[in-house]
């Protein structure tokens, strides 16, 4: 019994780490531009597949066969992560220029639909290149289950958790301690005043989207060895991460991280009871939370000045 719970705890923390990372990526663009990418899920899927492609390249394997178990070993996986982060970051800049900038700050929230449209395009291109079938991506530390106090833990789960935490601490420091972070927070607070203070607002916004998309891509690469990589895998992850962000308060990066982890743990514990009901339970819960506290658990209540 204890072992089952421990196992749920670890897998909940691991998937929660991914949710937290993606939730943070939503928060980064939302705080700086008051918009966010509704197709972050497609970015996750594309990130995973780009990772697979890079690993094929690095391990010198043919596209025909499945990736060998050792393909991610050594520096291959971190190199793939960097490449994916850079490539998806560039796609994020493209997203900002085509789908966000024309609509940001205008009434009507057209950016919701335009980012969804961008995601559909991205997904259709992914489908044309890689097809709909899921692909196996080996974990850099192998797929042998480690036994801890009777609980079976996969090395990738530990890796996901560690990488997610390191990235989040890094981003937290970046946002709070550096000049760039200060600029981002200034833009979040009031773009026009930030511009008057000599901050290049549009560069900050582009940077926010690049960073946010890079996180989504890396999230896809991290989660792919746990689930199998599929071009459709991102929607569920992004939705749950978004839920975590909303619960924690979109404008509060630390709240988003908390929300992501909380959602991962919740999902793992619901899965203990009835695996197929976990998404239903989670989304119903989110709807409920929002109905009671529209600003999320840790978000700031905004006052409409009349």
């Amino acid at each position, binding site marked *: 019994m204890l072992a089952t719970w421990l196992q749920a705890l670890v897998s909940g923390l691991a998937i929660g780490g991914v949710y937290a990372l993606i939730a943070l990526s939503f928060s980064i663009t*939302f705080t700086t531009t008051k918009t*966010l990418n*509704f197709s972050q899920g497609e970015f996750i899927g594309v990130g995973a597949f780009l990772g697979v492609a890079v690993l094929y390249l690095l391990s010198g394997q043919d596209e025909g066969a499945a990736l060998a178990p050792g393909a991610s070993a050594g520096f291959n996986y971190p190199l793939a992560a960097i490449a994916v982060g850079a490539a998806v970051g560039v796609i994020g800049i493209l997203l900002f220029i*085509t*789908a966000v900038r*024309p*609509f940001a700050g205008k009434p*009507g*929230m*057209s950016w*919701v*639909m*335009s980012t*969804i*449209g*961008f*995601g*559909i*395009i*991205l*997904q*259709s*291109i992914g*489908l*044309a290149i890689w097809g709909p079938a899921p692909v196996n991506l080996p974990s850099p530390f192998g797929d042998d289950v480690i036994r801890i106090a009777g609980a079976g833990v996969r090395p990738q789960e530990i890796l996901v958790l560690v990488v997610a935490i390191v990235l989040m601490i890094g981003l937290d420091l970046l946002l709070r301690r550096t000049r760039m972070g200060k600029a981002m927070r200034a833009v979040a607070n009031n773009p026009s005043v930030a511009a008057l203070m000599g901050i290049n607002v549009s560069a900050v916004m582009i940077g926010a989207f690049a960073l946010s998309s890079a996180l989504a891509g890396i999230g896809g690469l991290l989660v792919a060895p746990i689930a199998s990589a599929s071009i459709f895998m991102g*929607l569920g992850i992004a*939705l749950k991460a*978004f*839920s975590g962000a*909303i619960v924690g308060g*979109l404008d509060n990066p630390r709240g988003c991280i908390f929300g992501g982890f909380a959602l991962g743990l919740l999902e793992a514990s619901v899965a203990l009871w009835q695996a*197929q*009901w976990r*998404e*239903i339970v989670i*989304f*119903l819960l*989110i*709807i409920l939370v*929002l*109905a009671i506290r*529209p600003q*999320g658990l840790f978000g700031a209540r905004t*006052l*409409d000045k*009349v």
Partner: protein
Amino acid sequence: MRHVLAACIIAALAAGLVAVTANEFYLRILFSACVYLLCALGMNVLLGYAGQKSLGQAGLFGAGAYSVALLTTSLDMNPWLALVLAVAISAVFGVLIAAPSLRVRGPALAMVTLAFGIVVEKVVTEASDVFGGAMGIYAIKPLTIGGVPLSMAQWVWLGIALCLGIHLLLRNLLTGRFGRAFLSLQADEIAAGAVGVPVLRFKVLAFVIAAATCGLAGALVAQQNQYINSDFITFNLSIFILLVVLFGGSGSLVGPLLGAVTLTLLSAVLARWSWIERFANGALLLFALYAMPKGLAGVLSGVFGKIAGPKAAAEIRPPADVPLPTRPAIVVDGPLLQADDVCKSYGGVRPAHNIGARLMPGDIHALIGPNGAGKSTLINMLSGVVRADAGRIAFLGADLKHATMHAICHRGIARTFQNLRLFRELSVLDNVLLGQHARMSNGFLSSLFGLPRARREEARARQRAGAILDFLGLSHLAEAPAGSLAYGLQRRVELARALATEPRLLLLDEPAAGLNPQETAELGDLLLRVRAQGITILLVEHHMDLVMRISDHVIVLDYGEKISEGTPALVQSDPRVMAAYLGTDVEEMAPASSHAVAGLA
């Protein structure tokens, strides 16, 4: 009438096309077009008029489809009855999806609707003992006539008839009181409440209309296929419904038709290459928003539409000496409105502390005080925009403390806003007609069916709006979009909108802000004419010459407290008032205002 005729001709042509087509494949495409058109007709009300984004319409489609499936298989119900019940059940789901939207806004609302769609999708996939999961439900009873199931051509005819009927009904609804109210929600919810539109009720109504038509479409698909499974209910369907409305032209009456026909045809052509179809949909979604924000309908009306004539002269015409429409006069003993010990604080800021005021009927009252004195907060509390923390506000003897904005408007208090809150996209006339919203009595059904009552009310409202525009000298600008007018004119349109609610008490928050001296003087004359119509006025103003010229009674606030009140002459000579404005030496002042002066020093 021309519109009805054109719609009937299009429907007849489509029906004729069905009659001469024997090809089952073409008939199926026409049927799909009808199905998507049904979804889009309702979605247009929600998205195009009420401005609410729903990313979960597939869930409502599913509610209709599975209702009809379960009712006709498990309960063995008559298929026609099941169809009607399925629509009703979907409408109930519409209320469910609307419930969170009453509190949640922006991206979180999009998220809630998206989550709703996903929940329905997961439920019908996972709860396979009830919904059959991916296996689906077979042997759904099709619609029958005299015991014979409909043929494919008959299905299409039914679809066309339903589309035509629903289009005409929704047109009745959207071209009058209800359509304007939906548009006001999209433009500015606070202003909508202030002119008497019950914001929450209309939001729910828009969700219910969209839910009912989507549910109807889902039920038709289930009955026509006699089969439904979880593959029908996907996020892609929700997006496609949204795309049909956006691409066709959201907020336009012909938009859904244009969108449904073109996109169904496009899908049929591209269906062989699934990724290209997907790509095309994504690209259309992205670029339709750019290139044609008003959709195909906007492009067409740009091509065929009349070339705009020379702009009307943008000045105020001499106002006509016509009476304003007003409520029946009543005899009031004592004050019209009485506020006692009203308090409000935001954290440490206390913009109202034990404020009391008595507004006597037929007077012009002025509320003055330095910036940050709590004048706007008091107006906001009187009009229900913010709630007082403590105290009592009684209007004609009834307590307003818990009343909503629209209920306060119904009781006879109207207001304008310090930073203009006009419905900028709507015409001046529509803005004023929205002011008449609460004074019209035609309900949902009489508007939907275009009954004589609805037409009579609309005609009466237009006539009254015309009188108000005449009174203010704005009638030559009736058709101009309110947002296109010069600033001073916009202020006057907002006044017209407030007068259209036929108030007993008119609250004006800095009506002369941004006006030049000439306009300010004209405003003074105008307000005196409004008072002569029996309307009591409370105005917040910084132009002291205006205040002193027209007001009968002045209330002075400073730091959330009332420091003086009385006739203009009395207030002008009050040392505490001078201290608050000019910061005269503290020692000479009465002790009551010492902290105020200290704060100014």
